């Protein structure tokens, strides 16, 4: 009297005795019912009922008073944001579970080879013990754009700056009164021309007088120099203001090292660098040329990568997800590994397989059931992911980082309080998981036939 229908209080129907091998113990239906009852009752009341409610609710408008039929679904699919959200959710589902499972597998297998595996596991596992909110804050800190605050950019900038030099006066620029105007690419060119005998004045501003690099001395007005063109490059602003604009006043700093070029018809005919007192001298060839300050003087310092900008925001958040969840995969896979028959691995080694082959041909297949569990759990979890995205993605790039679950939260609770639309998104999510479920059914069927 094995295997009879025990669910939903239905009458006991005999089940084809074919696949009998599975039913070890000839369960009486009421026993199965007893084991399932608590779960079924709780799930029905706490999860299935809200789904039913959502289906019904998704047919009504924002405040639930007017029936709109499938209008919410129509709104959803005519919204551009949905497209981004679906695309990003697809990226998440394709990348994150595989990445996390892979990491977990590698960690679980490799830690078996070291004595300090517990310490290592603890380190990997720790992020799981951190709340989503705290994790979000951690990664806001990590990805902070300012290299003085965000560790990721501090590293990137540090590496970059050891290989490339930045300019000395990144923020400087000619004062608005001066004759020099921006001429593209960060360079400045004078509108007038140089003439021998008349010292050129190059007043720059935009640097705090007490923060000039190298703390140079005061500037001096250049003397006219024979046939050549002389001039002064200086900071036309002293602490506390004052002084005449465009004139070298006492106490105004020189800006040594600034490169000046004389340009005729787009060609550089001469160039010079400002000395310690800010003065420079160009040869006679510069007479009649335009004065140009090349962009190399002002190139902005390298500020690192805009991790949370529109293009990198989703990979960056997936990275933080991997950080959090690798511990999950690792722990479950380690639990699975604990059940693997070591003799099989040993046998393979004795047969001359190398470690990689043992891993590929023996360990992974033996772990397959666990890996599938982990992968499916993560896939489904990733479909629901919203808090990390919500906390980490800065507002201006939240559009680009949008995922379906976040759209659901924003629609339902984000101010619009459109429960109707939110419910519709929930139902769409539920439908999207069906392919995963069908694969699962197939797997179960196969397993049964074993």
């Amino acid at each position, binding site marked *: 009297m094995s295997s009879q229908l*025990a669910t939903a209080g239905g009458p006991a129907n005999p*089940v084809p005795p074919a696949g009998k091998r*599975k039913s*070890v*113990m000839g*369960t009486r239906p009421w026993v*199965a019912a007893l*084991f*399932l009852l*608590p*779960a079924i009752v*709780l*799930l029905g009341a*706490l*999860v299935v*009922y*809200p*789904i039913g409610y959502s289906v019904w609710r998704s047919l009504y408008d924002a405040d639930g008073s007017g029936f709109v039929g499938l209008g919410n679904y129509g709104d959803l699919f005519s919204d551009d944001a949905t497209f981004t959200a679906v695309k990003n959710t697809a990226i998440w589902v394709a990348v994150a579970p595989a990445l996390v499972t892979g990491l977990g597998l590698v960690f679980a297998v*490799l830690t078996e080879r*070291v004595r300090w595996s*517990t*310490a*290592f*596991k*603890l380190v*990997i596992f720790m992020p799981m*013990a951190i*709340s989503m909110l705290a994790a979000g*804050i*951690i990664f806001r*800190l*990590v990805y902070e754009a300012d290299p*003085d605050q*965000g*560790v990721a950019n*501090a590293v990137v900038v540090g590496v970059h700056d050891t290989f490339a030099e930045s300019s000395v006066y990144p923020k400087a620029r000619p004062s608005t009164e001066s004759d020099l105007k921006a001429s593209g690419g960060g360079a400045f060119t004078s509108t007038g021309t140089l003439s021998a005998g008349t010292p050129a004045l190059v007043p720059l501003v935009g640097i705090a007088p007490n923060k000039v690099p190298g703390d140079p001395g005061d500037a001096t007005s250049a003397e006219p120099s024979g046939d050549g063109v002389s001039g002064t490059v200086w900071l036309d602003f002293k602490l506390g203001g004052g002084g005449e604009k465009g004139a070298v006043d006492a106490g105004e700093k020189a800006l040594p090292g600034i490169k000046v070029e004389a340009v005729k018809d787009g060609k550089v005919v001469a160039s010079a660098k400002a000395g310690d007192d800010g003065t420079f001298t160009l040869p006679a060839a510069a007479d009649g040329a335009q004065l140009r300050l090349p962009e190399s003087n002002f190139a902005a310092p390298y500020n690192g990568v805009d991790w949370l900008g529109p293009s990198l925001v989703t990979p960056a958040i997936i990275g933080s997800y991997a*950080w959090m969840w690798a511990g*999950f995969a690792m722990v*479950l896979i380690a*639990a699975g590994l*604990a*059940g693997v*028959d070591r003799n099989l*691995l040993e046998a393979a*080694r004795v047969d001359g397989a190398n*470690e990689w082959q043992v891993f590929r041909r023996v360990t992974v297949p033996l772990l397959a*059931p666990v890996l599938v569990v982990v992968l499916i*759990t993560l896939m*489904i979890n990733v479909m*629901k992911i919203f808090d990390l995205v919500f906390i980490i993605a800065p507002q201006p790039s939240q559009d680009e980082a949008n995922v379906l679950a976040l759209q*659901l939260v924003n629609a*339902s609770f984000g101010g619009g309080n459109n429960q109707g639309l*939110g*419910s519709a998104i*929930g139902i769409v*999510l539920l439908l999207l*998981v069906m392919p995963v*479920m069908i694969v699962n*059914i197939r797997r179960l069927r196969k397993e*049964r036939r074993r």
Partner: protein
Amino acid sequence: MTTSSVPLKGPGEPGEPGSPAQPSAAVDAAGPPERSLASKLAGFFAGGAVRVFLVVVALLWVTPTVGLLASSFRDPTDIAASGWWEVFSKPSQLTTESYSTLLGKEEITDALWNTVLITVPATVLVVVIGAMAGYAFAWMDFKGRDWWFVAVVALLVVPIQIALIPLADLFGDLGIFGSVLGVVLFHVGFGLPFAIFLLRNFFAEIPRELLEAARLDGAGETRLFATVILPLGGPAIASLGIFQFLWVWNDMLVALIFSDSGSRPLTVALTEQTRQFSGNIETLAPGAFISMVIPLAVFFAFQRQFVSGVMAGAVK
């Protein structure tokens, strides 16, 4: 972590008796002696690479947490002014003020207790009910079993948010809205699908012979469950327990809405300490570590379960 010089034990043969312990730090200590020198060397380098790799990974993993930890010991004005790594060059910035401010508040200590009151039953119930259902799905036969199972798994995808309003409604009618019980029930409902999914799959891997043997000894379902399934499912149950524990422990959304001023847990109490329009690192960072202490203790308590091969030993 001073193990770099320790000769590694061969992978995956915990204490196999007569394995020839090779003092030459070869990775495969238990490797058959007839292996060539070249393969031993390769093994050695691979072992070294493994250790280096793991150390690098560990550093990478621990850095963000260290950042948070360092921030939790800094003054908010310092946090706003510079990166956390500055504490290494300026240890004078370290202060425990954020911690003493938080721990000095009665709300926080009360809320910690509420968190325990919510988390422990929510975890135990999910594990017990989930294990029962998982066993039924793995080893009992009834019509439509696979479909029922898949339906349960499909519930994994239900976002918590869609249940807030209907369950608030339901719990209000039952009179448990705002109570610890309401919060616990919510977590049980949303913890069960994963529990059933995980445990069913682990239980299904238990060798049939063991169950049949117990059956022949005259064990009934309940005894089978208690004496075979539960002990053999140890690692899986422990993993499930710890994850369910952590998820409930760290939940804020459900607690914010389903608890009231008498039953609110730590996460909600912590947000009360934050300021609107602020980064709030000085509250959230120490808060994260205060609330991490207990989960990590739980992990340590169960870690034997993860590592030791309870199942492996029994099965072989």
